[in-house]
């Protein structure tokens, strides 16, 4: 099978790569929260600008998450052998497992970042 001949790189053995997307969610969350808190405490201007700034963070975060998600999708390589159970003790199964889990975490992070931008769209006020 072609899958067995694929290279197994150090990046494919990296647990931190799997959790990079939720880490981006965490950074986005903190940035949005801190920006809003400082904005409101120090009176930095009208809330519409705040909405723009936070939406800007969101665009940047989502681009990074999509990029990572694609990388993880490639590592999972589902369309190669339609394998979604990775229960063998082989390099291939471990690589696809980390890719699969990382891809799903990227999807979750994508949605969670949108959740955390909605407040500035619908409730963008310091009051």
């Amino acid at each position: 099978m072609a899958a067995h001949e694929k290279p197994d790189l150090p990046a494919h053995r990296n647990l931190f790569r799997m959790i990079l997307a939720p880490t981006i969610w965490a950074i986005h969350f903190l940035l949005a929260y801190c920006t809003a808190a400082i904005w409101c405490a120090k009176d930095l201007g009208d809330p519409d600008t705040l909405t723009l700034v936070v939406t800007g963070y969101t665009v940047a975060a989502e681009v990074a998450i999509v990029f990572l998600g694609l990388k993880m999708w490639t590592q999972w390589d589902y369309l190669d052998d339609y394998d979604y159970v990775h229960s063998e003790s082989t390099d291939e199964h471990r690589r696809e497992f980390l890719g699969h889990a990382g891809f799903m975490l990227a999807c979750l992070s994508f949605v969670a970042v949108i959740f955390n931008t909605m407040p500035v769209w619908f409730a963008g006020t310091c009051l």
Partner: protein
Amino acid sequence: MTDAPRIGDTSARRDLEKHEVRVAEGTYPPTEEMLSAPIDPEESRATADRLLKAWYAPQGWRYWSAVNNSEVGLWYALTSFVFMLMAGGLALVMRLQLAVPDNDLISADRFNQFFTMHGSAMMFLFAVPMFEAISILLLPAFLGARDMPFPRLSAYGFWAFLIGGVFIMGSLLFGAAPAAGWFMYPPLSTIDEGVGPDIWLLGLSFIEVASIAAAVELIVGTIKCRPPGMRINLMPLYAWYVLVVGVMILFAFPPLIAGDFLFELQRSFDWPFFDPARGGDPLLWQHLFWIFGHPEVYIVFLPSIAVAAMIVPAAAQRPMVGYNWIVLSAVGTGFLSFGLWVHHMFTTGLPTISLGFFSAASEAVVIPTGIQLFAFVATLLAGRVKMILPMLWIAGALAIFTAGGLTGVMVALAPFDWQVHDSYFIVAHLHYTLFGGMVFPLIGGIYFFYPFIRKQRMSERLGRISFWLTFVGFNLTFLPMHLTGLLGMPRRVYTYPAGVGWDDLNMLSTIGAFVIASGILVFAWDLVRPKGDEMKERNPWGAGDLMWAHDIPDKFWGVRSIPYVTSRNPLWDQPGIVERMDAGGYYLPDAQEGLRETIVTSAIDAQPQFVARITGPAWCTMWAAAFTGGAFILPVFHMYIPAMICAVLATACVIYWLWTSTALIPEHPMKDVGMGLQLPTYVSGPSAPGWWGVFITMLGDMTAFASLIFGVFFYWTASEQFPPPLAEHADGALVLASAVLYGAAWGATRVARPLNRDGQVALAQVLLAGGALAAALGAGALVWSILHLDPTSHVYPAILYAIAVWTAVHTIPGIIMQFYCLAGTIFGKIRPTYDAPIWNTVLFWHFLLVTALVAAFTIGALPGML
């Protein structure tokens, strides 16, 4: 966390500094012939005898010096169960007081003490320690390991927990218990003139230290002590949850420790961190508390779901549907749960937009939480379910937890929360989540794992009686509370007037509480009653994980030989594995040197890396815990000198423990572990569990430090003028000198490591001594730079003092470690090729350098920029 290169790969033979190091040699993975080779029964008996001798259990009164995970885990679990019964008893008294209006069974003050201790004990003395206890007990068995990587650390954690728990619960007997609620909000708690808040702060800080110790142990155990072949995609789901929860503890508990640190400085020395009159802010405590407090809920919930994740496949008799989905939801919940903390603070007047972020994250966390429940349901649908007793408890848990989750979605909406905040609706919600998310799965788990723990069966009949009593009683107690809350009854009132519509509902809750109590007592009786002979059958549930290869009667060696694993459910998929394990046909069947050993494998692919020599029974851990207890408990009574003496003695015990039993120089650098594989007996740096222990501990420590720095920014955003316009500042020249000295101390330590490796031991010794001197001077300069400020005058000098004190105190272990290495090189404990302590010291110093530089920047430069 990338994995080590393959066995046989030449690049594996050099460490970070391009030095030759020893690595595994020989055949791996084992060939088919090796796995089916016949085993000589004579030899098997001889090796079993030697192994048993190495893993003896101490007899008589020496039994208490045991450090085996099977003993420590059991004591730990029973102790926290006893604390749970006590905390439940407090709840019963409260329910009696509330049964009828205008009751005067107990006084208001006693009622305050009871609800404070009920919450604190259930959270700190039961929920979290119980997770750690059960994991210490079960994790090595799931992983086919002999023991945890640091058995004495578990024992130390247990004794610390016992001392701290008895101290805190004991305060109830003297009517001196904390009474300001389990979250201890200032200013109520800072102006309290009794010792209650101090008992809470210092006692629980002490227990938090024990919790972090256990978390370090569990994380290292999960990533380094898996059996060969058990790659990360084959880990039992329980291990995934333990890993996630361990990491969560590391990031959740330290903010509370930082908060406790500030709080106690205010209580003892009047530094005004939470006093608005002098620039402080009580909300900072709320933030630090809930940054801990909300993840805590998930720290409690996930391990119980982990138990469910082991019971469900056994009940359905098929592998879990959606292993990947469960990993996703465990990791995803771990992350998202850190974005929820302000939903406990919706009524504090924060800007709407801030509330929005936390409301949104609180709704988002439902996604991963829901996914794992669906995976369970899918597994049950796809399998042929045997309704075994543990599964009954899990089913009850799912029903109750889901109801709690639904009210959780309601209170996550800020406007709804404004209506029900601090009412009995919240009491109902939190009990539905915690009882359904923790107590039911836990009891189900105990029924499930009891045959492993005690080699006997619990009663099916008593178990069903207990379940129905608890389940009915629970709903009888807490379902009406939703209504009581919506009718306006506030939490934490010791009595209420008649005729406002709360009377009957309260009576119903009180009756229900006693029904729960009867259910729990039936369970407790079933737990302790004599049960006759040991059972014959090893795998009563027909489960597929390695745990059920256990020995009956129990042997203290953990496993007879460490298997080579190629499946998620080895007992189902690898025929003959149990027989071969028993016969000593896998790795490490022998203990030629009479030492306790286990195999350490690589983090991702579980390739064998080295043979770890594990510590055995000892008293020094108990002494260390006792003196640590003194160091935390005596300051409650303002006995600072005895407390310091205790701290010194605790340090001495720990140094003795490390020096005499860790990183011992082996009699031979390589060891044959069977099946044609030779492994090193000593490693330094990132392959060594000790290095990971330091790394993980310091990650937690950094989180606490970051919380202090967060405090500075918080004061800046929360007040009009921070620092105040006419404030005096730190002495810039001294701060700069301190930063330079810390840099020098770090550099000297860092350079000493390769010098020692190269054999230039004398030069390394000079650098270590010089580094210690520079560190001491650096700490001195930092403290001196702010000595002219008055920390009681305003929160600005106070927070600078707190940061300087924090950094200076952390310098003490830095210096001790430098001297430890110096002494090691002099007395032959450290040699050029056996240098693990130096690696760990350098790692500690990386973190200390960051702490010192950030502290210097915050004290010296930041105030000018704000």
